């Protein structure tokens, strides 16, 4: 509408010059109107309306301009067009995410009309998703579907969105259109749970998320499922993680069958194209005769994978089973939390939850967000209180005083897809404090009484001493003082003399001890050396003898001194 308005105003403003060529050339060319683009995948179509009183032999030409271009350029595929639309898919665009401007005019001979400008647009925003090309393959109970992504192989429109498409499919039995089934599939997928020897019809459309853009439905494709295969495929595939291994199990009724299982990355589904060569044999699951196999945990890298199983009876093999998606996170072991409980006051208990203790196992120490389920009950009754908490502190209020309450908790992963929980922690019990009864007061009273008694005793003692000192002074103090006076000098003398004596004695004693030590040690040394003389040169023993003689000389000197 705006473009139209703009165009008309432009025509009104430039009315005068528009009249001139009409007057001079005789031709009365009117600009085309209502120019619009229609883009489906990589098909760019420009449409317009020509004015009613269009003259014969009038052609239309368009020009375009993209950012970074100073001048208008001729729009390829849209030159001298006789009809009212043209295909400009061959235009070379840098990308489809930038604004493009178009203008169009009527031409006849040498005269031309005014340009009609189309509202500028971003090709990607205008583009619609075209119908899809679908290839089907039938099995007895499934249809393999292969959707080619919208656009051509080297489409520039969806070049960056090939992996972003989601495909929704409607499938029905040809005999009854009423039983429609809608499924979201990847570009290569399989539709299961079908009946053998039945005609199924389906149509598919592509979608882009946010901003949601829904494509056109593909044409309806019909296909017959094959007759029931002699060897049925395994069913009900399930995988579980148990002590360091995965256990893969499936259901199969017949005897004498061998099985093999394969795995593949789930992310491959996001990439269009065939990935049939990307399936890998699962170790321990090749030619097994049982309907289960035990897989070591290191068989898969961390992530989401797909698993499929095939049965074989020697002569022929079954179709592959339904693919089972599993996440290696399932092996994660969550350990029970460590809980402790404290009574805060007489009517509430405070429970604090410690993080689960992780083992040394590598897979466990990933900090998954956890929530805790806390179960709380009175020891004597069975009535439980259950709390699911994200926090690690819970307080249970309104409890009876002096009652034993117990609590246990377990940890959950905060994931909707795979709920994993730990076992319950050890039960912790705690008695609430006595209520606001006389008992607390009694205890407090006793305590204060005891304390005050001690204080009073001490104070009285001190007072008594003071009173004693003041009122009943001791009658003998001078005599004791005298005693001390008389004793002091004697003691000092004694002390001083004894000190001198000991000093003397010590020299002698020291000398004696030295001689004893010196006498004993060299002998030992000498013995040692004797034992070593077989290896050592004689110098050592000589030196030793020398040193021994020196020491004895020194001793002699000391003795003489």
């Amino acid at each position, binding site marked *: 509408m705006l473009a139209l308005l703009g165009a008309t105003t432009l025509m009104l403003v430039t009315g005068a010059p528009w009249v001139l060529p009409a007057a001079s050339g005789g031709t009365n060319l009117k600009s085309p109107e209502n120019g619009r683009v229609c883009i489906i995948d990589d098909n760019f179509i420009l449409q317009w309306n020509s004015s009613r009183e269009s003259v014969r032999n009038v052609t239309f030409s368009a020009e375009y301009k993209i950012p970074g271009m100073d001048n208008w350029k001729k729009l390829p595929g849209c030159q001298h067009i006789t009809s009212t639309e043209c295909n400009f898919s061959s235009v070379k665009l840098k990308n489809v995410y930038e604004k493009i401007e178009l203008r169009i005019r009527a031409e006849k001979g040498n005269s031309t009309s005014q340009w009609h400008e189309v509202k500028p647009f971003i090709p990607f925003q205008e583009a619609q998703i075209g119908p899809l090309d679908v290839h089907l393959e039938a099995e007895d109970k499934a249809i393999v579907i292969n959707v080619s992504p919208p656009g051509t192989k080297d489409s520039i429109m969806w070049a960056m969105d090939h992996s972003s498409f989601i495909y929704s499919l409607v499938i029905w039995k040809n005999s009854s259109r009423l039983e429609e089934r809608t499924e979201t599939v990847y570009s290569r997928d399989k539709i299961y749970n079908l009946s053998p020897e039945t005609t199924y019809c389906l149509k598919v459309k592509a979608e882009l*998320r*946010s901003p*949601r853009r829904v494509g056109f439905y593909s044409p309806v494709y019909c296909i017959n499922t094959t007759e029931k295969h002699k060897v049925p495929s395994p069913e009900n595939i399930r995988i579980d993680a148990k002590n360091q291994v995965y256990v893969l199990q499936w259901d199969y009724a017949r005897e004498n069958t061998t099985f093999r299982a394969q795995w593949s990355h789930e992310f491959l589904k996001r990439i269009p194209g065939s990935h049939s060569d990307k399936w890998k044999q699962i170790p321990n699951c090749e030619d097994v005769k049982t309907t289960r196999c035990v897989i070591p945990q290191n068989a898969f*890298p961390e*992530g989401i994978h797909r698993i499929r199983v095939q049965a074989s009876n020697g002569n022929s093999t079954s179709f592959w089973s339904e693919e089972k998606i599993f996440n290696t996170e399932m092996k994660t072991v969550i350990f029970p939390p460590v809980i402790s409980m404290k009574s805060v006051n007489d009517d509430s208990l405070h429970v604090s939850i410690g993080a689960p203790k992780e083992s040394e196992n590598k897979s466990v120490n990933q900090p998954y967000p956890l929530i805790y389920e806390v179960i709380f009950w009175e020891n004597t009754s069975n009535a439980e209180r259950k709390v699911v908490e994200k926090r690690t502190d819970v307080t249970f209020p309104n409890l009876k005083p002096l009652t034993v309450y117990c609590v246990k908790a377990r940890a959950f992963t*905060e994931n909707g897809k795979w709920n994993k929980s730990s076992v319950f922690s050890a039960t912790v019990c705690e008695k609430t404090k006595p209520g606001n009864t006389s008992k607390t007061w009694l205890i407090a009273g006793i305590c204060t009484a005891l304390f005050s008694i001690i204080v009073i005793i001490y104070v009285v003692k001190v007072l008594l001493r003071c009173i004693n000192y003041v009122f009943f002074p001791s009658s003998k103090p001078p005599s004791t003082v005298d005693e001390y006076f008389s004793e002091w000098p004697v003691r000092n003398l004694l002390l001083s003399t004894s000190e001198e004596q000991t000093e003397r004695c010590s020299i002698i004693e020291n000398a004696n001890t030295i001689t004893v030590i010196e006498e004993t040690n060299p002998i030992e040394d000498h013995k040692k050396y004797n034992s070593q003389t077989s290896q050592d040169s004689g110098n050592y023993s000589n030196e030793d003898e020398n040193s021994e003689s020196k020491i004895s000389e020194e001793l002699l000197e000391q003795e003489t001194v």
Partner: protein
Amino acid sequence: MINKPFFDIVLVLLASSSVCSRELKLVLFQQKRVNRESLKLLNKLQTSSIQQCLPHRKNFLLPQKSVNPHQYQKGQALTILHEMLQQIFNLFRAIISLNGWEESHMEKLLIELHQQLKYLEALMRWQAQQKRDTLGSENLRLQVKIYFQRIRDYLENQDYSTCAWTIVQVEINRCLFFVFQLTGKLSKQGMET
């Protein structure tokens, strides 16, 4: 007195927002794993090869200013995150088909990216159900696309040389850093609402 239906509504609202915040927490957690794998991959590169590739550097103009996390609502931030991770996935899956790359590490990154995209897609579905407006997200998505188009054009012009891939890988790591910041802010926003 406030009547009972009012409380019911409040409870429902609280529950739904808690579902969302729980998912958001997972998204943040998963983003840590994505970034860790990306860094591991980057560590595989030889310092010598990075130095040798320095002359090939290019500014790809990461649209971090125009997609400032403060300005946008949850829906818009989700859109940016989804588009960026989707494009990174596309780029790396192109690399995986080339020889001479540490395939197992690239696979690990793709695995984590795929998981993250699944979380984000679940959130987007939830948001679509809530009919939250995602107005303006179209334009943001385009900006992200243009940024990745620049990277693709660069690779093409450089004939997908080893150096070009090295430069791109460093750039993607930078981009992932931005993504991580955005995820953190998104999950914080989610907790608040």
